């Protein structure tokens, strides 16, 4: 069966899985931003913690997803089977680029500019929101962009824990050696990754233009 025929026959299921996939990526990236950006900012205030925190985020990256799911299944609230566990895993994987780029973006602000702000009597909060964040935002956004694109790919493993998404077609296709099925999952995921990359890239360029 060709891919086009497959989509024609299963349009509703495909749309449902695309929706699940988008939900997994959007929610997990959102949570990773809410945790990762403040954490990255905090690291610029407590540089001694930079090594341990980024090291831990690095270690998380290397844990295979099936092993991570295995650890999570028995845990209350964040575990079990289904979307929650998948989202926890995706957040864990998305944290590193966001924390690191937030830290690098802010730490990279010219010290002279920061000193000028302080000289004008800015509080730490004003310095952060009026000077450091606007100047470091491009780098921060680049981290979010990487995290989002990687999440679109990684979200296919959600199908291993009963959370659905486009990985369902990939797992089914691998179990049955059906290339059409594998493509049916992989192709929309690839397009989604390209679209996310393009949109966030556009946002990045507009920001760069405004900053000029």
């Amino acid at each position, binding site marked *: 069966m060709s891919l086009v025929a497959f989509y024609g026959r299963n349009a509703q299921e495909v749309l449902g899985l695309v929706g699940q996939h988008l939900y997994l990526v959007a929610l997990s990236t959102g949570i990773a931003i809410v945790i990762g950006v403040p954490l990255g900012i905090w690291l610029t205030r407590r540089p001694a913690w930079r090594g341990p925190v980024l090291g831990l985020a690095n270690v998380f990256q290397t844990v295979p997803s*099936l092993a991570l*799911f*295995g650890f999570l*299944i*028995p845990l209350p609230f964040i575990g*079990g*089977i*289904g979307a929650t566990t998948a989202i926890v895993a995706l957040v864990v994987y998305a944290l590193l680029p966001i924390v690191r780029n937030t830290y690098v973006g802010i730490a990279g602000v010219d010290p002279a500019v920061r000193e000028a702000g302080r000289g004008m009597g800015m509080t730490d909060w004003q310095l952060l929101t009026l000077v450091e964040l606007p100047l470091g935002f491009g780098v921060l956004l680049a981290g979010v962009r990487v995290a989002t694109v990687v999440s679109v790919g990684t979200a296919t493993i959600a*199908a*291993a*824990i*009963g959370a659905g998404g486009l990985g*369902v077609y990939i*797992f*089914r296709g*691998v*179990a*049955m*050696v059906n290339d059409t099925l594998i493509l049916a999952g992989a192709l929309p995921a690839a397009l989604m990754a390209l679209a996310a990359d393009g949109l966030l890239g556009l946002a990045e360029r507009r920001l760069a233009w405004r900053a000029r």
Partner: protein
Amino acid sequence: MARALTALRGRARWGSPWFAAAVLATGCAHGDRVVVGSKNFTESDLLGEIVAQQIERRTALRVERRFHLGGTFVCHAAITAGQIDLYPEYSGTAYTAVLQHVAIADPAQVRRRVIAEYLERFQLRWLGPFGFDNTFAILVRRADAERHALRRLSDLAAVAPHWRAGFGYEFLERADGFAGLAERYGLHFAAPPTAMDLGLTYRALADGRVDVIAGNSTDGQIAALELVALEDDRHYFPPYEAAPVLRAQTLLAHPELGAALASLEGKITAAEMRRLNALADVEHRDIVDLARAWLREHVP
């Protein structure tokens, strides 16, 4: 394979180390080497290792191991493409999943047709079976089985409407998988079964996240996790006799393989297989050591 090699030769300008590496990576039998494959679960790895060591003990052939390949269909694709020379397969799996026949319960008929059709369609030979059956096992927690007096699969229909099921993708898709089982036993679960990774279903069952899963009857985890296999009293699952499947071409080139593997025939009982699986899965003993000890004891 010949065509692939020619294609590789055409790229020899990459430099000879790369060329040598590429030829090694394609892994088909030539010269004095056989490639033994196995599927992606412990029992298949154990059988693959036993077969590999037996070949190493009894012939002068070099054995290359390609274990833990992604399931029935991947192994079948690999052996028909000549990427591997032999791997352990199950008669019922070949009959329904590869040959696409409707499952039947008669072991002799399954064996006869599988042997004939494999040779004719794929030029693959079925050697003598190892001596045990590994059928699908529908598993529940022991406590649940005792509380609801569940012994057979036909007892399950009464509790199913309150229970949740979790199955691997292969069991959900296969012709002898979930759909037919649900029909034969009139099973209607509280929700459609959760599709998940096979290995994770055991953990999900043990941790109470689902109530029914489909495993294999020789799994070492069954006893370790205090699970019970329900008896297939309406004979839904076809027989699954384990045996080595070998490329006919490889057997022609190396007839000594037949003699070496014939001495494994009928040597592994279901209880023995469960014990080996438990040692590997639950006690995390090394598969290579387990295979060596088993061979020393049973095939002196």
